[in-house]
């Protein structure tokens, strides 16, 4: 059998990854435990998955090999509940980044856990009783009524053997099969939930006096001591009676590969009903046929008519490649049970070999309603023609039409929209896609039929609902604009006793939505005061931002890295009226960069940095039309000042900083008053729903409801249970307010240069600044030397020191201290690389220093939660190097970041899988750098590459970068591969080159 794991190239590591196996208790189900095994350091592996370490022991399992033999392997056992909690929250197999995916046995038990919880949530559990070793007592326990729709069989068949490789008690030649162990697990989960998580504890000391059976049993079922003592009848008999009672639900075998299914065949009707009036009911005169079938549980499309089953000798029937044991018995018992749930079937039992049944309209209506509900819940197939399937839209139902005129008379088109103002909605009655008028509704209802032919289709009418609908029709209510938008976008509005009611937009809400949807046209963008040209997709982004903010609404610009979000935000700011100040909040490491970008692209836009000990602490300091830039740390610190100002626009850059709703940062963000708030982020927030909620709570408060409601309605169904409908609904809901383009989008890629050069300016920390200044002073105070040779040597030595300081003090000082927070470059680089990893891209980081590479290796593995970051440098042997490259290029489970030393050059390095390249430090020789970059970007590479070059502002790095850029001729004349050309400069030029400009040093206070 082929193993069809998703993305399974990491098979070499799989054998040493943590495995999980359930070990049922032989006393009471809730006492079952999980065994963690299969790797050398089990406790560490458990901690990595957020599981308790448990107690050490041995697992009665098997050893892989040919043949497979019995073996007792070291394991740690953990009680059921903590593992259950973790498994229920685990993402599904395809949602894990390949390098962190747990073993298949863990994922399989995660699915089993979710299935078990679904079973208990639905109330499918029964109390039971097991006789003990003495006749007068026994154990009360719970058993699950497993789902009978074939999912258990599908899961059991897909289960990795390691997950159920528990040897049977006193049998060393056999293990539990998956189905049996899953059944035991379901019972354990039911038992533990019914006991509210209490672990069973048979404690004879706590036994009380004899009480009536119902009381004793009830108490034992819900407490931690499951023992029932003082029985009047022998325990065996009690157990038998309880088993008999539960028999009809528990007796059925869930292993069955096929089941009884009923197929409804409508009569062929002449089309008497295409007019406006409902047809006379052809339904009453016609007869419907119900066919009896055997349906495969694993592939629902495969069926066999009952007639064929009756004719075949037992054991010879196969469906979907699986043998159907006792096919006739399946049908017989199925019919008997189904007849209890849907009485019209009883007639079939009077025949010897029933194959079909005639039904009248009333029977059909029952089948389509409660009959089909009961039958499918009991695990029978009910096949109904598409036009009669219980899609909401085919029934007669209530619908909300939202968006009449706003209650206070304000009309769309104003420059600012008060989102809290109210609009009204009304209830209507819908059938299919149409709205029924009062008269039409009355006519349909007057016919008093459960099934009606209307405009050429069959329609069900639930007459119990009809009165309710009649009452609702035409009634109205009000909601805020935000709620109205949310309802219109998601298509649902929650009403107290009706639950979620289908909603459509009309009037000004519909007009508003149309405006939003049509807002991203490039010609709509108002570009003002920008020095530079915007690409088409950028103009679309600006148009969209302007439309949103024009309406007083916020949004999230979530474009991929390198597409120019900063520029788009600046274009928004320059187009705003000058009547208020605006604020940009960003990570400390890019405050300087923002200022530079604004000065570069919008030189006429007044910009000021709100930072440093001299920063203002009064409102008056923020002038109309000015843009203030501050860091998240300072926003938190100075919130009392900032929340008093009426801002025009507040832009939150790298908005993942406010992803935790409860954090001070998020609270502060919500407190800043503004006409509109815009968030920017490069990480795919559609994949992190709690992050999404938190950010939208800042930009569009109220759109997504409360956090708890959001979690129940969207987060859990999408992240834990992969509910497609919920995912689609959420996408529709946020679509007008989130814009995300990828580098690979066709209309973006066409505008992008194949190599997108991004210069990232970072600042020195105080520590770095003082080291830098000291190095400069030292070099010049002693004189640069008398001979050319000496001079050259000293200059190169100075440059090396300065470069190392700009990289990280720990590299320069060769100390073993803390890495975090001591280097602006490292901070920013980590932020960028985190975004790259989160987006699922791969990147190369170049550095010319081996020590810096080692430093980065350690730091990145920790900070980015990667198992390891490979470092390719001169000391790596050729075969090792080839292996590293091969893994990077081909192995999905390999870390997505690779460090490469600039000097490790040479041929044979092909890292085309990377779409992001970072130059951590520079070799001031353009040819060498370009060659390094080109390793990633090669002919044959079809995707655009972002090249991030880190430059420390106000230092030699900055100046040389500028020099090389401005004086192209100089750059072209650089000969050879060294940096010696710098030494040709005279002393004064040199001095200005290396001088440190203090403006650009990070404020220590900000590192918070």
């Amino acid at each position, binding site marked *: 059998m082929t193993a069809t794991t998703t993305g399974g190239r990491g098979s070499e590591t799989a054998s040493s990854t943590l495995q999980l196996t359930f070990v049922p208790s032989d006393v009471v189900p809730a006492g079952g435990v999980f065994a963690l095994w299969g790797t050398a350091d089990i406790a560490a592996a458990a901690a990595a998955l957020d599981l308790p370490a448990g107690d050490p022991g041995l697992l009665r399992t098997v050893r892989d090999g040919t*043949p497979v033999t019995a073996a007792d392997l070291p394991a740690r056992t953990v009680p059921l509940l903590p593992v259950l909690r973790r498994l229920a929250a685990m993402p599904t197999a395809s949602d894990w980044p390949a390098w962190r995916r747990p073993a298949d046995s863990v994922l399989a038990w995660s699915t089993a856990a*979710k299935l078990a919880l679904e079973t208990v949530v*639905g109330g499918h559990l029964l109390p039971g009783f097991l006789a003990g070793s003495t006749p007068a007592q026994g154990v009360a326990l719970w058993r699950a009524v497993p789902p009978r729709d074939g999912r258990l069989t599908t899961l059991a068949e897909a289960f990795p053997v390691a997950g159920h490789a528990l040897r049977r008690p006193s049998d060393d030649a056999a293990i539990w099969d998956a189905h049996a162990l899953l059944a035991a697990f379901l019972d354990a989960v039911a038992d533990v*939930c019914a006991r509210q998580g209490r672990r069973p504890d048979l404690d004879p000391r706590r036994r009380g006096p004899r009480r009536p059976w*119902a009381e004793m049993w009830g108490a034992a079922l819900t407490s931690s001591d499951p023992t029932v003592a003082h029985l009047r009848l022998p325990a065996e008999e009690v157990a038998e009676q309880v088993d008999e009672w539960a028999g009809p639900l528990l007796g059925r075998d869930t292993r069955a590969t096929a089941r009884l299914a009923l197929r409804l065949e409508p009569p062929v009707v002449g089309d008497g009903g295409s007019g406006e009036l409902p047809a006379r009911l052809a339904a009453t005169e016609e007869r419907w046929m119900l066919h009896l079938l055997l349906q495969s549980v694993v592939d629902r499309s495969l069926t066999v008519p009952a007639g064929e089953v009756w004719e075949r000798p037992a054991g010879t029937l196969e469906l979907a490649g699986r043998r159907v044991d006792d096919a006739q018995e399946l049908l017989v018992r199925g019919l008997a049970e189904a007849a209890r749930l849907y009485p019209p079937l009883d007639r079939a039992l009077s025949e010897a070999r029933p194959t079909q049944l005639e039904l009248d309209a009333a029977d059909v209506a029952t089948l389509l309603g409660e009959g089909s509900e009961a039958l499918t819940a009991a695990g029978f197939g009910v096949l109904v023609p598409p036009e009669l399937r219980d899609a909401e839209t085919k029934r007669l139902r209530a619908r909300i039409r939202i968006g009449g005129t706003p209650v206070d008379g304000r009309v769309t088109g104003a420059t600012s929209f008060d989102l809290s103002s109210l609009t009204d909605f009304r209830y209507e009655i819908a059938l299919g896609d149409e709205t029924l008028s009062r008269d039409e509704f009355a006519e349909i209802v007057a016919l008093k039929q459960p099934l009606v032919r209307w405009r050429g289709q069959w329609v069900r009418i639930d007459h119990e609902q009809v009165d309710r609908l009649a009452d609702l029709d035409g009634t109205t209510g009000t909601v805020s604009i935000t709620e109205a938008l949310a309802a219109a976008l998601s298509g649902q509005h929650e009403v107290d006793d009706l639950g979620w009611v289908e909603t459509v937009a009309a009037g000004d809400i519909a007009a508003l939505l149309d405006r939003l949807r049509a807002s991203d046209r490039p010609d709509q963008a108002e570009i003002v005061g920008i020095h530079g040209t915007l690409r088409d997709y950028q103009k679309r982004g600006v148009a969209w931002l302007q439309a949103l903010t024009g309406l007083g609404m916020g949004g999230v610009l979530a474009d991929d890295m390198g597409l120019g979000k900063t520029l788009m935000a600046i274009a928004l700011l320059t187009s705003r009226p000058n009547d208020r100040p605006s604020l940009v909040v960003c990570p400390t490491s890019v405050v300087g960069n923002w200022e530079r970008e604004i000065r570069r692209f919008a030189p006429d836009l007044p910009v000021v940095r709100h930072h440093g000990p001299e920063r203002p602490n009064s409102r008056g300091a923020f002038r109309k039309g000015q843009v203030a830039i501050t860091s998240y740390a300072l926003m938190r610190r100075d919130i009392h000042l900032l929340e008093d100002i009426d801002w025009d626009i507040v832009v939150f850059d790298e908005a993942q900083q406010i992803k935790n709703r409860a954090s001070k940062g998020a609270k502060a963000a919500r407190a800043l008053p503004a006409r509109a708030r815009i968030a920017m982020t490069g990480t795919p927030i559609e994949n992190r729903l709690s992050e999404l909620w938190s950010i939208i709570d800042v930009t569009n408060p109220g759109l997504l409801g409360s956090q708890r409601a959001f979690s129940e309605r969207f987060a859990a169904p999408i992240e834990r249970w992969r509910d497609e409908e919920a995912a689609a609904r959420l996408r529709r809901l946020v679509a007008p307010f989130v814009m995300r383009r990828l580098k690979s989008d066709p209309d973006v890629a066409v505008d992008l240069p194949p190599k997108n050069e991004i210069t990232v300016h970072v600042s020195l920390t105080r520590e770095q600044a003082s080291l830098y200044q000291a190095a400069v002073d030292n070099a010049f105070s002693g004189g640069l030397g008398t001979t050319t040779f000496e001079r050259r040597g000293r200059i190169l030595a100075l440059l090396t020191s300065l470069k190392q300081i700009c990289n990280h003090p720990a590299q320069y000082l060769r100390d073993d201290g803390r890495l975090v927070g001591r280097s602006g470059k490292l901070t920013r680089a980590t932020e960028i690389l985190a975004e790259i990893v989160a987006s699922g891209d791969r990147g190369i980081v170049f550095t010319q220093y081996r020590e810096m590479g080692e430093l980065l290796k350690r730091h990145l593995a920790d900070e980015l939660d990667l198992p390891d970051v490979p470092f390719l440098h001169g000391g790596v042997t050729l075969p090792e190097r080839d292996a590293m490259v091969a893994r990077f290029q081909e192995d999905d489970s390999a870390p997505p970041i690779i460090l490469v030393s600039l000097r490790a050059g040479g041929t044979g390095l092909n890292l085309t899988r990377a779409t992001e390249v970072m130059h951590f430090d520079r070799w001031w020789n353009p040819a060498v750098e370009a060659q390094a970059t080109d390793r990633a970007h090669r002919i044959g590479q079809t995707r655009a590459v972002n090249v991030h070059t880190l430059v420390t502002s106000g230092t030699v790095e900055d100046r040389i970068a500028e020099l090389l850029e401005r004086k192209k001729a100089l750059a072209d004349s650089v000969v050879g591969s060294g940096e010696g050309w710098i030494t040709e400069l005279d002393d004064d030029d040199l001095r200005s080159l290396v001088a440190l400009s203090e403006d650009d040093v990070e404020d220590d206070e900000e590192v918070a």
Partner: protein
Amino acid sequence: MSTSDQAWWSRRWLEMLEATGAAFAQRLDRGRYFARKGVVHDLVIEPGHVGARVRDSRTHPYRVEVTVPTFADGEWTRVVESLAGELRFTARLLDGELPEDIDEALAPAGLELFPRADELDATCTCGETRMPCRHLAAVHYSFAEELDRDPFLLLQLRGRDRGSILAGLRAARSGGEGRPAARPGVLPLADLEGGSLVHARGDLDEVTVHPERVEDPAVLFDRLGHPPGVKDTAPYERMIARAADFAWRLAAGEGSDAADDELLVAELRAQRMSTAASVAEALGWPEERTREALDRLFEAGTVMRTGSGERTRYRA
């Protein structure tokens, strides 16, 4: 075994016995008492014969034997044919029950499943002249108890076991024998293929899950009726509802803190006063997390805290 719990077929058997002699009511009573006391041993039920030993007050037990005429092969064929006429009968048999209208079903075959009293031939070593003696009565009552649990004993007594009857019914419907199913639940090591035990054997993501809260989680009681010995199902329905709530919190992840807090407080109550470490161990949680949660509860005023450092103790 009270009469109200008896299945109709065991009651019928006893009715047949009781009809033989109202005059012997006293002996029948005694027999019933004996059977309850458990003095009937080594009950044997075979085609055509029921036998047992009855230990009366004396040490030496009496032997009771009852013979019952069996159906001949030809008669069995007629039985199976009659039963095959309606699927309903097979359905009941598969459920482990005798159809109530079995007499009607077998009438066309001219047969009765239940033997008449005069068809039975009974002996007992007690020497009592008039039958039934109390020992025979005891054996009847014991047999009736067994029959109540397994009505197929009657069929067996008449000469065929359940399996062969069901096979006969199947054959009557279609023809031919079948292959037996494999032993469920057990997977021999010999059937395992080495080398890929850690890998899934199919697509795990194929199984989709959709926990959904239901209005009335205890609707199962409507289908099954009252559990044995329980007059008021309301407390049991509440247990199921609370189990569903607990499972929902685990499934949807909301308020798991609240569930944890409940557990913590419950455990503290059970331990009276203890350290975070001991509570953590009892619940199987990491100690760090337990301490944090306990401190949080202390801040919230739900829990008391004394001591410091390693000697910090909490109390509910």
